[in-house]
């Protein structure tokens, strides 16, 4: 019980509650159900992407190409729609294309053995470049999209837009996968101790490949949702969003060294960032403050993480000198 109250996730819940209460004290309208539902809906794309990124980070990798994958699949979805392809084909195509783009990352990491940070740094610019090659830098605007294409994410079902329901479904599915399936547990095993994972019969590279494929497929799904919700597709859609995604993971307690973290923490990290983003205009702070605030939140989150995980008792080796805690990039 005490552990549950002082856990990382609990701390994050306290922080979110305190922050929301402070905002609601001055601006009660912010916690009206419709306003909270709006905030959730605005954060939905981030949540879906964060689930994929979390899995990748758990396996000691990082995927910096998520935003570029999102932009490319979103553009392809918009172009397909413009060509008259029905929605039931467009959406699976977007997800499949995202998965393929993720597989390219995964293959380069698994088969060629290039560190993931290098691979995704490269594919990030390549994927965005491909959008430019496809469109010559032209935008696909609202009037060029079919009504069905634009309507789906905003369609209200049981009081919430489809966009929110998709996020809830993804969270539920991966909540089960990560805790109840062999694949889910092997992501943790690979990140927690790759050597032990090999001896336990888990193929490290193949698991990382699976992680990238999932991350890509989810980015493909968000690609469609994003482009249809904002009703515009262009080269720089979601530019720099990969950093928000990584930031939400870090705030949510996913260890960048792999193997530690979960769906609940990741989603709390998203909610934290989402509330800041939606509250700033409400409390009358210029949106220019947002970047500095999320930066500060990231630094504080890492510091709190490190303090919490600090082993108690007599130290023989300094914490970062122990092989298990060695910093891993890539």
């Amino acid at each position, binding site marked *: 019980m005490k552990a549950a109250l002082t856990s990382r996730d609990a701390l994050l819940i306290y922080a979110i509650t305190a922050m929301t209460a402070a905002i609601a004290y001055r601006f009660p309208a912010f916690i009206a159900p419709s306003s909270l539902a709006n905030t959730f809906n605005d954060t939905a794309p981030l949540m879906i992407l964060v689930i994929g990124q979390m899995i990748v980070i758990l396996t000691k990798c990082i995927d910096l190409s998520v935003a570029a994958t999102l932009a490319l699949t979103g553009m392809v979805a918009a172009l397909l729609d413009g060509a008259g392809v029905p929605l039931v084909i467009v959406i699976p195509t977007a997800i499949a294309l995202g998965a393929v783009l993720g597989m390219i990352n995964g293959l380069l990491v698994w088969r060629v*053995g290039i560190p993931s940070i290098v691979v995704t740094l*490269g594919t990030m610019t390549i994927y965005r470049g491909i959008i430019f090659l496809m469109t010559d830098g032209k935008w696909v605007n609202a009037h060029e999209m079919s009504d069905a294409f634009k309507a789906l994410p905003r369609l209200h079902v049981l009081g919430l837009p489809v966009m929110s329901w998709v996020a809830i479904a993804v969270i539920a599915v991966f909540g089960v996968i990560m805790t109840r399936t062999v694949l889910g547990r092997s992501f943790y095993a690979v990140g927690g101790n790759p050597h032990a994972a090999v001896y336990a019969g888990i193929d490290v590279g193949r698991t990382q490949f699976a992680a990238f494929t999932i991350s890509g497929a989810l980015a493909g799904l968000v690609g469609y949702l994003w482009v249809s919700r904002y009703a515009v597709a262009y080269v720089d859609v979601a530019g720099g969003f990969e950093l928000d995604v990584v930031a939400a993971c870090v705030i949510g307690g996913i260890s960048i060294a792999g193997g530690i973290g979960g769906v609940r923490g990741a989603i709390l990290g998203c909610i934290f960032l989402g509330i800041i983003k939606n509250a700033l205009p409400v409390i009358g702070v210029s949106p220019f403050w947002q*970047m500095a605030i999320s930066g500060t939140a990231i*630094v504080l989150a890492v510091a709190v993480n490190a303090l919490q995980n600090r082993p108690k008792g007599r130290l023989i080796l300094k914490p970062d000198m122990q092989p298990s805690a060695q910093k891993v990039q890539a």
Partner: protein
Amino acid sequence: MSAPHTQNRHLPDRLQTPAMRALRSWEALLVVVFILIFTANSFASPYFLNVWNLSDATFNFTEKAMIAFAMAMLIIAGEIDLSVASIIALASTAMGLVMSAGYGVPVIVVTGIAVGLICGAINGVLVAGMNLPSIVVTIGTMSLFRGVSFIILGDQAFTGYPKEFAFFGQGYVFWVISFELFLFAITAVIFYILLHRTNFGRAVFVIGNNPVGALFSGVRVARVRFILFLLTGLMSGIAAVCLTSRLGSTRPSIATGMELEIITMVVLGGVNILGGSGSILGVVLAAFIMGMVTFGIGLLNVPGIVMSIFLGLLLIAVIAAPKLIWRK
């Protein structure tokens, strides 16, 4: 990362001669790539082989390369700094503030460099002092530093820097040698000596290969890490002075995405992204290659984003090629 190595290491019957080793080195490969790109460019555009055009082309990489030298040392030591471009933004904003307050060129320059040092020190304290993972810390400070610029400037810009200030980004020291190229050459030599000819440089390699071993060998690991972040901040401050002077204005979005180009340059230069190996010569060659690719494609009127595809492909291809070719 690949599966742990379980197979035995290959032991050669005799060692390679120094000449053979140089021939098969990463730097030799880079030289070949550079010659290929240079030749291709001179055939592709008649304007390429002109001293002044080539001198102009160096502006494509001098500022990035100055930071890349410090970044190379940081990556060799097993750390990374993603906040360099944001440090440029903050330093440039501070220079704009000082300029608006009516101070002259010396104060502007000192301010830019000082802000760079302060930002580097902040990263250094967080990473070396508090033992936090650098990749996350610098993703955070990356938002923080540029965020402060955005708070100060919003959608405004600082313009109207004094005429004499233009020298740092637009001036020429001698004939076609610009001040930036001159500074690039000097910093290259300084960093070469620092990394390859001093105890400090050896300590950087040792830390990158085995931090525990380094600690037990009496290397002050935290101090070296801190100094490396300070150096990266310093070089970012210097680059901010050059870039601001060259553009003649400051916007909060200045140098956006430059950190990725700098890391690409470092990795292309043969520095192991996981730490432990690399050379300044490689980074110098990578800087020239990236500069020539950007410039050559620019002469053919290809838009910037297509260039970035080439750079992305170049990054992956150059890392993948040797792994695929030398594979058993």
